[in-house]
């Protein structure tokens, strides 16, 4: 992991404390973390810099998480997206089809175990670029 420590991650959640929690967890793994509280802010950040993995809240005030994943990947095709939601379940058709289409590569429901986050991150980092 250490040699990948240059990897940049993006956390998008309209809940500031949620951004705090995720950036702590990911920061402790040795990654640089940028946070955004809306899809608009996320896109602005992605314009400036490329992220290997983005953790996206499914329910954002402006654009929903799945749509944001598509837009991010249109802008930066290499970015892997993990969806986090307190609203949807992983058997939700929206999640299932997003996974199948590859716009997201993982799903975590809130509340989560921090190991789930770390695990999803590792999986995303080793996933083949599509």
């Amino acid at each position: 992991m250490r040699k990948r420590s240059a990897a940049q991650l993006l956390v998008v959640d309209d809940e500031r404390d949620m951004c705090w929690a995720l950036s702590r967890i990911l920061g402790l793994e040795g990654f640089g973390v940028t946070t955004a509280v809306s899809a608009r802010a996320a896109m602005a950040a992605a314009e400036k810099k490329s992220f290997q993995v983005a953790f996206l809240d499914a329910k954002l005030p402006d654009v929903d998480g799945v749509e944001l994943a598509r837009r991010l990947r249109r802008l930066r095709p290499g970015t892997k997206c993990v969806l986090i939601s307190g609203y949807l379940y992983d058997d939700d058709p929206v999640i299932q089809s997003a996974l199948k289409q590859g716009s997201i590569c993982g799903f975590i429901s809130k509340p989560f175990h921090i190991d789930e986050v770390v695990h999803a991150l590792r999986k995303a980092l080793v996933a083949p670029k599509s």
Partner: protein
Amino acid sequence: MSPRKNKAESLLSCILDNASVSMLCVGPALRVVLAGSNWRARLGEGEDEDGRQIHRVFAESEQRDEVQELLRKVFRTGKPLVGQRLEDRNRHYEYSIIPFMWGGEVTYAILVLRDTTEELRLLEEVRAVQSRLTSIVESASDIVISLDLSGRIVTWNNAARAITGRSSREVTGRRLADLCPGDSREAFSHAIAETLRTKRVGPVRLRLCGRDAEVRTVDWAFSAMADEAGTVSGIVAVGRDLTEQLETEGRLQRADRLAALGVMAGGIAHEVRNPLAISSAAAQLLLTRPLDRATQLECAEKIHTGIERASHIIESLLRFARSSEPGQQSVLDMTNVIREALRLVENQRKLVRVKLSLSLGRRRSTVRGNPTLLMQAVVNLLLNAVNAMPDGGGLFVSSAREADKVLVRVRDTGRGIPKDDVRKVFDPFFTTMRVGMGTGLGLSVTYAIVQQHGGDLQIESAEGQGTVVTVELPLAGEKSP
């Protein structure tokens, strides 16, 4: 003719001329001997009945044979006949035939005719009025019944029959109270006694035994029936069957609650899971990661705020679930409710760069109600306004006192509501938001809450220009607790 007979005849003609009835004196050959001036008055000029056959006198009447027959009978028997009816030349008469005896035999028969045309016309009018009144009472959908002074049923209309399943014959003479379930009987008797005392009682909600042992809920109005002299002769009871209406209202209220709970449940999933996730993540960090003292404190703090937030949400849910209990009501200032609601939507508002203009009246806008519910109502309106302005805009929130009302207004410069949708926005589940974003219950719940508080809600919108929602709530007195 003998002089005595002459004297008698002139006496007769005097009577015939001066009576208020018409009289014809008829001889044994059934010819008119003398006609009173009243009768002559109906003749045309130059006409004279004297000497005419009775059959010809009533030539135009269908009863001419009958008159002739009866006259013959009187001559034969010497017995008077009374109360006969006759229609002639469009006038109605009641007539009697009185034999005039002279020397042991019937010399004349006197036909006494009373013109009843006017009387019959009046009677007809009275009947028409009566039947109109009856048909009003009979076709009314409300129970209309009359009672005597002891509360016994005198008349009973169709509606009463339909609702109770009892015919007029079955109930006439029975006490109305006897047709009520036990718990309403005393109240019924009391209402009737009160009506006799105060002339008017009601509306009182009392139960009545309906068809098939069903109990109906009826709103009654009792009034004393008084004659011209003011003497009370009975009681009129008018009752409206509210059973179905009350059932529907109950169902609607339950549906409102369910819809509202649905919103809460949807909101809860999202709202509670966030603070739970934050607290849980912070706790796990504390447990599994080596952290410096400052980060440890930070984690503890996040756990604390997370738990507080979650329990606050649970609390409002509980409060909401119990909101129908009157105990939850208090007198509160709507300006505080608005401030609080604005704090809750502040994040969303700033995110989409909506500029807020706040104008809260200087006078206290006190209303009586449930603070959590009223706040939810305002939050729903604010969220709708913010959601209508994804590219920014102006949000104008005001509260003002107007007469005995508090007006809360939420105006936005957003996309507005298309004409066709204006009626639908209050429908539960009507939403134009993307799947998963809007429940479509916001306005229906808000409307239910406002109504529950005795208020009203109006929405005005122009597509592409914006929307104004005005909530009117009854002003509560400052002194009330």
